[in-house]
Structure formats: structure tokens, C-alpha cells
């Protein structure tokens, strides 16, 4: 039924019984800046909530996976040590902006394979302020000015606009949409709406990207308890993490050179195709989406890479409001990273927490009507991309 491609999907478990992965509980510390709250305390809040929802205590999970990029040595141990929850395997996972997705894939695989009955997956981060500094680059690349992430985002955005006919007005419309959604999300860093005029009046960081078109690296935590699905548990239908293929010059891989070949599929498309295949679903089955909007152009590129629309169709979708909360297929009902900010290790799991609430019908003023199938997407340094599909 399933291909042998990477990614987690339902498998024949022990004794030939098909094992489904269920969501037992979720928790989240708001994303933002919290100068008086330490890294461990951010994680403690999210983990305690998720475990309380799942109805488990010490001994209630058999393994823990912690996504973090800047947390440092044994971050997961520090968080679980503070809660007297050590003793199981605790595995820190780093995969750039997809770190939380990578942790989720490992956790889901541990359930689907029959190895564990219940696992804890969480992500925690306190990002340095300002432009993200990354050991991904050699010191000479920093010295030469070849390291700033927004510059690579801008090049990708320029090509998107050139190739599709999308405009800076469309980029501003993404910001207006996501910030409007974020107004009613208490987990978001920015809870005020913006106008397109104000977005375009903010300073240019790297043409065509203005300051308000870029998300803020920040702090936060999210946690999910997965278990062998029972009863009405929401199902994790697929979690697929993929890295980039060699040759693409403008992927999040940020190589120093690439081939003159624009047909190389992106890491996002690879992950999406894996996930759709594993879930036995297609883009038309998706009711609600949380996708990577590190910058406004990244969201629009993600739509086409996820096969949610044809290249260039984004302008019509934005104009018609189809991606708004009340639209045909809302995208980033949480407000996205443009509203929440991006704590790398936690951001993917923050998306999943939002989608769990959407599927449960507990998203309050952000509730999407009749959401049955949800897709979460992150992509970042590596390049790594992760696509998760959830359903009833």
C-alpha cells in the first residue's frame, strides 16, 4: 500500500495489526519574547499541558524527542529533568526550521513501528535577537556578507515574482491575512492587524522584502503526546521529512552554486508528495493548512510547492479571500510565523497544536468550519522540509 520512501506512515505492527498514530494531548507556551522566562521553563509549560491533556504522569511515555536548534547540549534532558521525567530515551533533534517536524517524525515512527505505545514530542527555543546567525556558514562567508538569511529569502522571492507575475502587493496581502488571523491568537507575538500600506511603508530589508514581510525569530515551546491511536483520537496520517536534492541554487540549502536547471523539485515538494502518498490523500483533500511563512513570499511559494495551487494562481486566491479564515481553504489560521514569530525547534509543533485545535473544533474565534483534514508544513536550513497530515 505504501512506498518505501522516507517518512512515517501507518505500518503493519507487531502481530500484523495495523498501528495508527493518535494525538493524546497538546500543549504550548506562547511564542514571543520572554526575558524573565528561561529556556527550561518554556518547555516545562508546554510539556505539562500536553501530559495533562493526555492524562499521563511520570512513566506515562516510553521515549521523548525534543526539537531545538539553539537550545544547546541535552536541552530535552534539561526540560524533562526539571519535571522529574527522565529515565526514558531523550533525543534532541536538530533540522533547522524543521527541527520540530523531525522530532515528530521520529516519535510517530516509534508508535507506528510498534516499538512504543506512548511518546512525548516537544520543541523549545530561545532565539538570539536580530538576523539569525548560523554555524551553517563558514566564517569567511559571514565576513564576505554571503550569510544573511533575509538576502537568500529575497532572492527566492525575486525569482517567484519574476516567474509567476506575482507582485509586492501580493506579498503585502499575505501579511495582512496572517496578521488578521493572529489578532485572535493568544499564542501569537503580534496580535495587531496591519494594512497593506503599512507593510509596504516599512523599511526595505532586502528588495522585495520589507521588514513586516519577515517573521521574527523568537522564543516559545510546544508539545504533543502521541500514542497508539484509540477511539476518537485525532490521527497523524503522515509525517515526512525530506532534504533538498543537489543542484537547486535557491533552495533553503543556500549553496554557493547550482545548476541551470529550474526543474529540480524542492524539499517541500518531495516531502509533500511523500506525505500525500503515505496518507492516501491529495491536495484537494486538505481543508486547512499551516505553512512556512518565514517571509511572505515563502508562504506563496509553499502553496505551489505543496501543490495547493498552480504557480501564479496565488494572486487570485488572495484576492478572493480563499486562504482567509472564512475562505474555501484557510492557510495559517494561527496567524502563521508572521504573527507568532519563529522559535525554530518549536515552530513545526506549534503548527500541529493549532491544527489539532482546528480539527477538534476548539480553536475559538479562529475556528475553521468543518475542518476534517489538515496539513502542516515547515522548511528551512539544510534544506529540510517536513509535511504532516492530520485527520479525524
Amino acid at each position: 500500500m505504501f512506498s518505501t520512501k522516507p517518512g512515517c506512515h501507518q505500518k503493519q505492527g507487531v502481530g500484523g495489526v495495523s498501528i495508527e498514530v493518535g494525538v493524546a494531548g497538546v500543549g504550548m507556551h506562547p511564542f514571543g519574547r520572554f526575558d524573565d522566562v528561561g529556556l527550561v521553563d518554556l518547555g516545562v509549560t508546554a510539556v505539562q499541558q500536553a501530559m495533562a491533556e493526555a492524562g499521563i504522569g511520570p512513566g506515562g511515555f516510553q521515549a521523548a524527542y525534543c526539537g531545538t536548534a539553539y537550545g544547546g547540549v541535552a536541552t530535552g534532558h534539561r526540560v524533562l529533568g526539571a519535571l522529574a521525567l527522565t529515565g526514558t530515551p531523550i533525543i534532541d533533534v536538530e533540522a533547522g526550521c524543521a527541527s520540530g517536524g523531525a522530532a515528530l517524525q521520529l516519535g510517530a515512527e516509534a508508535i507506528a513501528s510498534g516499538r512504543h505505545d506512548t511518546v512525548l514530542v516537544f520543541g523549545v527555543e530561545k532565539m538570539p535577537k536580530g538576523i539569525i546567525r548560523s554555524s551553517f556558514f563558514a566564517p569567511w562567508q559571514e565576513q564576505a556578507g554571503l550569510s544573511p538569511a533575509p538576502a537568500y529569502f529575497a532572492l527566492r522571492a525575486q525569482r517567484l515574482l519574476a516567474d509567476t507575475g506575482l507582485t509586492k502587493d501580493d506579498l503585502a496581502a499575505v501579511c495582512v491575512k496572517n496578521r488578521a488571523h493572529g489578532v485572535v491568537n493568544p499564542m501569537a507575538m503580534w496580535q495587531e492587524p496591519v494594512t497593506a500600506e503599512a507593510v509596504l511603508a516599512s523599511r526595505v530589508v532586502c528588495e522585495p522584502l520589507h521588514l513586516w514581510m519577515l517573521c521574527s525569530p523568537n522564543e516559545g515551546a510546544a508539545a504533543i503526546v502521541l500514542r497508539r491511536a484509540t477511539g476518537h483520537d485525532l490521527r497523524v496520517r503522515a509525517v515526512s521529512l525530506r532534504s533538498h536534492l543537489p543542484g537547486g541554487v535557491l533552495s533553503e540549502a543556500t549553496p554557493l552554486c547550482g545548476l541551470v536547471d529550474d526543474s529540480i523539485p524542492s524539499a517541500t515538494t518531495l516531502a509533500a508528495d511523500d506525505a500525500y502518498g503515505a496518507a492516501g490523500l491529495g491536495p484537494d483533500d486538505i481543508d486547512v493548512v499551516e505553512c512556512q511563512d518565514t517571509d511572505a513570499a515563502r508562504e506563496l511559494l509553499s502553496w505551489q510547492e505543496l501543490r495547493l495551487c498552480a504557480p501564479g494562481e496565488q494572486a487570485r486566491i488572495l484576492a478572493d479571500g480563499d486562504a482567509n479564515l472564512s475562505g474555501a481553504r484557510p492557510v495559517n489560521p494561527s496567524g502563521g510565523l508572521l504573527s507568532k514569530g519563529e522559535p525554530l525547534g518549536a515552530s513545526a509543533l506549534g503548527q500541529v497544536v493549532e491544527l489539532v485545535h482546528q480539527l477538534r473544533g476548539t480553536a475559538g474565534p479562529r475556528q475553521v468550519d468543518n475542518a476534517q483534514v489538515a496539513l502542516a508544513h515547515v522548511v528551512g536550513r539544510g534544506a529540510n522540509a517536513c509535511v504532516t497530515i492530520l485527520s479525524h
Partner: protein
Amino acid sequence: MDPIAPGLFELATDGSITLVGGFSHVSGHHHFPLGPVCPFTGADDVERVLLPRDGRLWVWTAVTHPPPGYGGPVPYGFGVVELDGIGLRVVTRLTESDPSRGHEGQRMTLVTDDVGDGIAMWAFAPVPE
């Protein structure tokens, strides 16, 4: 001027600069900087080659705020130039820091760029049309 890092380019006594890359006969691809195998296919027959000094602008922007670890001037141009004849696109500094003055397919040529403290880096400059 001292090169920013060894092995990236050759500086001639007349001040001209040439990027040092690799070529694999098996894959048919050039790459930059020179690596142990072809980064696109893994072919291990890489030969050290000097890359074309001319190309065309494919995508460009400008960096307006100094990123961490960078002590050179801002704004500075940043983009990708497609090198003539070899099917390779190189991420690069650009001497033109006003994005409104670039256009796709613009003729570009390699020059030496000073990123501060007498450190030499490569950049591409527009060829007058």
C-alpha cells in the same frame, strides 16, 4: 590584498581575479568552490579548473543592514550570476547596490571587491551596455 579564504580564486599581479572550480567529465558539470566530488552527482573524477569570468545576472537584491560577522560597507549587492557557457549559477556579491538598476540577463564580469581590512573577495560588476 589578502584573499578572504584559500582556494576560492586566483589573484593575478595585474589585479585580475578568477574563480577556481571543479569539473567532472563523468557528470559533465562544473561546480564552485572546488570540492572533492561533483556536488550534483557524486562523481569523483573532479578536475581543478578556472571558471569563466563573464556571465549574466539571473536574480539580485541588496543587503541594507550589516549581518552578523560582516564588517564591510552596506548596502551591498547580492545575487546569482549565470556563468557563460557552463550551466553554472554562482551566488555572489554584486558591485551594484541599487536593485532598480539590475535587469535579468544583464552582462556581468568578475572583479575584485574589498570587504574591509584589505581582504579581497570576488564580486560581479555590470558590463556597460
